[in-house]
């Protein structure tokens, strides 16, 4: 995944997202979870939950998704259920 992919997908979503932000959420889900596999379903759900928590439009989920994609492309994926062993809290060293 490159930044160009990310940009292109969201431009396309933006162009066909008729009916307002709420109506576009399923489309965002299809593209970022089903089509590309950038996020797991539960990570997407968390993103939507955060967008309800924050003021402003729900489509601000794009901020979450962009951050998530960029950080999992640069380093091993550490978000979502398919993540490697928990990094936190750090388990105490065996004595």
């Amino acid at each position: 995944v490159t930044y160009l992919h990310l940009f292109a997908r969201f431009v396309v979503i933006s162009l066909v997202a008729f009916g307002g932000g709420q109506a576009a959420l399923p489309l965002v889900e299809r593209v970022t979870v089903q089509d590309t596999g950038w996020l797991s379903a539960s990570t997407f759900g968390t993103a939507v939950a955060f967008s309800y928590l924050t003021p402003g439009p729900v489509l601000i989920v794009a901020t979450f998704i962009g951050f998530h994609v960029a950080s999992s492309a640069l380093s091993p994926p550490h978000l979502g259920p398919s993540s490697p062993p928990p990094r936190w809290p750090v388990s105490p060293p065996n004595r």
Partner: protein
Amino acid sequence: MPLSRLAVTFLRIGALAFGGLGATLALIERELVERQRVVDRAQITDALTYTKLLPGSTVVQVIAYLGWRIAGWTGSAIATTAFLIPSAALMLILTAGYAHIASAPAMVSIRRGVLAVVVALLLLSMERLGRPFMASPWKVIVGVAAFLVVMALNVSAIWAVVLAGIVGLLVEGRRT
């Protein structure tokens, strides 16, 4: 209205715009129509009418339109940016924090609860959106067809949207 005050006003609206479109429109009306008296109610209605034709977030488009009414293109750019800054900043903070604690046991449990609520909220908003949209037989047919095509054939949802737009143009366009 000086541009600095415009920026501050829209930053504040952006920071307080909780609760979706309806609550945000009420906030905009209180702030810009009643308090600052820089737009009138009819302009908000105009904005809502125009945004029906455009894809994307309704709130952002209403803000862009009102910014333009108040102070032209510069006003529109400032208003839109200022409105989105609190939302995007808060989302970035939450996202960065979440990345650190996503796999913590407590976070996993919290997420299970939250996801159930998100699903319920999405179903509610789909129901609310669906009622007016599914008003005539051809719309129901297009909806069901899109569902089947996307689910069974694994076609990208974007193609379904584009195709449905073309069908809409053919069906409704012929009538007018």
